[in-house]
Each structure stands twice: as structure tokens, then as C-alpha cells.
């Protein structure tokens, strides 16, 4: 890339790389200095909260990247139900294949999970904002039930989708029929005609 990457971005990417290699507990600011090429002084200027802040923001950074990838995978779905079906399938696979996530969940979940919870509200906002235009399109095409508040619907779907991505429960996300049933009945039964 000829465009220089902002230092903040460099540091977050480097922290992520260190976590992948050493884990969250063992990663030090010194590791991040070495990996990023950014000075210790600059890192502390960008992240005055030190290692704790670095880790928290790196979790947020990777969650952003994950959901951006998800949005890119489904943005051109022909309709809302297909969007959600595609999203659930993609996200499920992406989580299964996410090596760093798997490793940290296995070895130090107590470090990661509180940070995911804290960052979750940001992700919810992102998903809700992403879904709203698709709901508006459904409404324009006469497929939304009478009287449904689109913002409330987007919030509800975003919350349930996020929950399903993390924990599918009884649903087999590798089975397209089950995913379709889940989306068209449980999720959208009250929203689409």
C-alpha cells in the first residue's frame, strides 16, 4: 500500500498479531513496540490506559473488521430474508474458522469475554444501521407488516442476529433449511408479510 497507515491502526494491528502469537495475558507493550515499529512513547500517547486500553481497543478493532467482512459478504442480497440467511451462514463459518478467537476462548476466555461485552453495543449500532435501509426497501416493496416500526424492527433483528452468531443454540447453521426456517419464522414472522 502506498498510502501510509495511521499509527493507531498500526498499533492495533500489531497488538492483534501479538495476541495471536502470545495470547492476551502474555502480550506486553514492548511486544507491540517491536511488532508495530511505533515508539513506546507514541503508543502511550495514543493509548494512555496502557495495555488494558490497548487490548480493549484491539478487541473492538477486530470486531469491527469481522462485521465489516460480514457486511461485505451480504450487502448485495436480493431481499431482507436472504440477507439475514446469508449473514448467519457466513458469520457462523467465520467464527468457526477464526483461529485467534478459538485459541483465546480456549485458553483465556475470562480476559476476552468482558471486552467483547463492552464493545458489543458498538457492534449493535453498526448492525442496526446496516439493516435499516434493507428494511426500508422491503417496506417500499410492500413486504413489511402493517404498522411495524422499522427502527424497532432493526433493533430487534440486530440483537437476535448477534445472539445467534455467538450461540446458535439448537440451530444448525450449516443446514440451509434450518437457517431459512429460523429467519423466515422466528426472526421475521412479525416483520414481513
Amino acid at each position, binding site marked *: 500500500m502506498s498510502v501510509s497507515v495511521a499509527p493507531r491502526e498500526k498499533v492495533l494491528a500489531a497488538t492483534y498479531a501479538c495476541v495471536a502469537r502470545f495470547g492476551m495475558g502474555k502480550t506486553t507493550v514492548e511486544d507491540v513496540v517491536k511488532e508495530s515499529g511505533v515508539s513506546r512513547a507514541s503508543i502511550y500517547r495514543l493509548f494512555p490506559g496502557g495495555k488494558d486500553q490497548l487490548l480493549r481497543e484491539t478487541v473492538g478493532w477486530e470486531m469491527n473488521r469481522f462485521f465489516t467482512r460480514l457486511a461485505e459478504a451480504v450487502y448485495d442480497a436480493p431481499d431482507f430474508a436472504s440477507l439475514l440467511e446469508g449473514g448467519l451462514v457466513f458469520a457462523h463459518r467465520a467464527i468457526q474458522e477464526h483461529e485467534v478467537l478459538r485459541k483465546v*476462548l480456549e485458553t483465556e*476466555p*475470562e*480476559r476476552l*469475554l*468482558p471486552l*467483547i*461485552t463492552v464493545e*458489543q*453495543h458498538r457492534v*449493535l449500532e453498526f448492525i442496526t444501521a446496516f439493516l435499516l435501509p434493507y428494511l426500508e426497501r422491503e417496506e417500499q416493496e410492500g413486504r413489511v*407488516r402493517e404498522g*411495524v416500526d422499522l427502527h*424497532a*424492527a432493526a*433493533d*430487534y433483528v440486530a*440483537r*437476535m442476529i*448477534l*445472539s*445467534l452468531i*455467538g*450461540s*446458535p*443454540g*439448537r440451530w444448525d447453521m450449516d443446514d440451509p433449511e434450518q437457517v431459512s426456517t429460523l429467519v423466515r*419464522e*422466528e*426472526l*421475521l*414472522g*412479525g*416483520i414481513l408479510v
Partner: protein
Amino acid sequence: MALPTATPQAPSLSPTIEDRAVQAMLACVARHGLAKTTFDDVAREAGCARATLYRYFGGKRQLVRLTVTREAARIAAGIRDAAGAAPTLEDAVVAMVVRAARELRDNESLQFLFAFEPELVLPHVTFDAGNRFLVAAGSAVAPALNRFLPAERAERAAEWLARVVLTHAVSPTSPIDLTDESAARALVREFVLPGLAGAETAVPTTPTTTRG
């Protein structure tokens, strides 16, 4: 959820000691959290000799497991009872959702953990553990829906309700307060109920209260 049976080395469990120990554990956690609560703290709170508690429970770990099992069973029973003799599926669902949300809100031990020791709770209710939790929670409250839905649909619906409560009642940014009956009814009526398979044809099959 079944209660553990007596350990080989202990005499048969006295319900009184078990009750006292569980209540004491809950009180200690509500006050100081789980990490700082020692077996001695629990003994003191329960008014039991330390030796007695050790004989019954072996250690803190076992007592924590028992406390979780007992509380989960108590909460599940409360949610089932809340559906009571509700005349419609909507009424039953609203009652259960509100009860579940209030149980969470009013549980001081759980609230302490969420606020100050989330790392102790989250590994048990997220990702793979979350699957087990949702399925178990669904199974535990599904009997309350058997009046309205066939067994398989009741299980599926109950798991969905557990998910609805968890995603709204535990989130600090939720626009909906599920402890409020009219807010819960609006959500259930608009988005939740129409998504439950079989809901549109559900009528109660027995007029009397069934205990799950």
C-alpha cells in the same frame, strides 16, 4: 435440573443445612462477589460450623455448583408458574418474559457478578457454553407452554424466549424494559409471538393450571 445426591463421605443431606448454605452463598456473593467469598464467610453467614459445611460440600467449588443449580431451578420454576392459568399464549409468554426479566434484575448476586466480575459469568453463557445454556433454559421453561403448543414447538419457542430475554434484559443499551409489562407485551405482540411456530393457532388445551 436435578439436585446432586449425597456425597459418599457425607451423611444424607439435611435440607436445612443445604438451604442455609445456598442462601448464605448468595448473600455473600451479593455483598462481596464470588472471588472474595471464602468457605469460612459462607459458614459464618449460614451460622454453621466450618467442619459441618466441609462435610456436606467438600469445598467452595461444589457449593457454588449447588447454588447455581438451585437458583436456576428456582428461577425456572418461577417463570413456569408465572404462565399460570393465562388464557392465551400471548398472556403466558408476556408473564414469563416479565418474570424472567425481573428475576434477573432482582438477583443481587447475579447483578454483582455482571457489574464487577463478568469474567466469572460470561464463560458460562456465551459461545459454546451459551448454546448449552439456551437449550437448558428452554427445556426448563417449555412445560409452561405445553398447554398451547405441541412439545417440540414448545421447546423451540421456549429457547427463543430465553434468547429474547437475554438479549434485552442484560444489555445496558436496550430500548425496551422487559420488567415493564406493557413494554414486554408490545415486544411480544409485535415481534416475538408472530415468529413462534404454531402461535397463530394456539389455544389452551386444558382449562386448569398445570404445574410444569
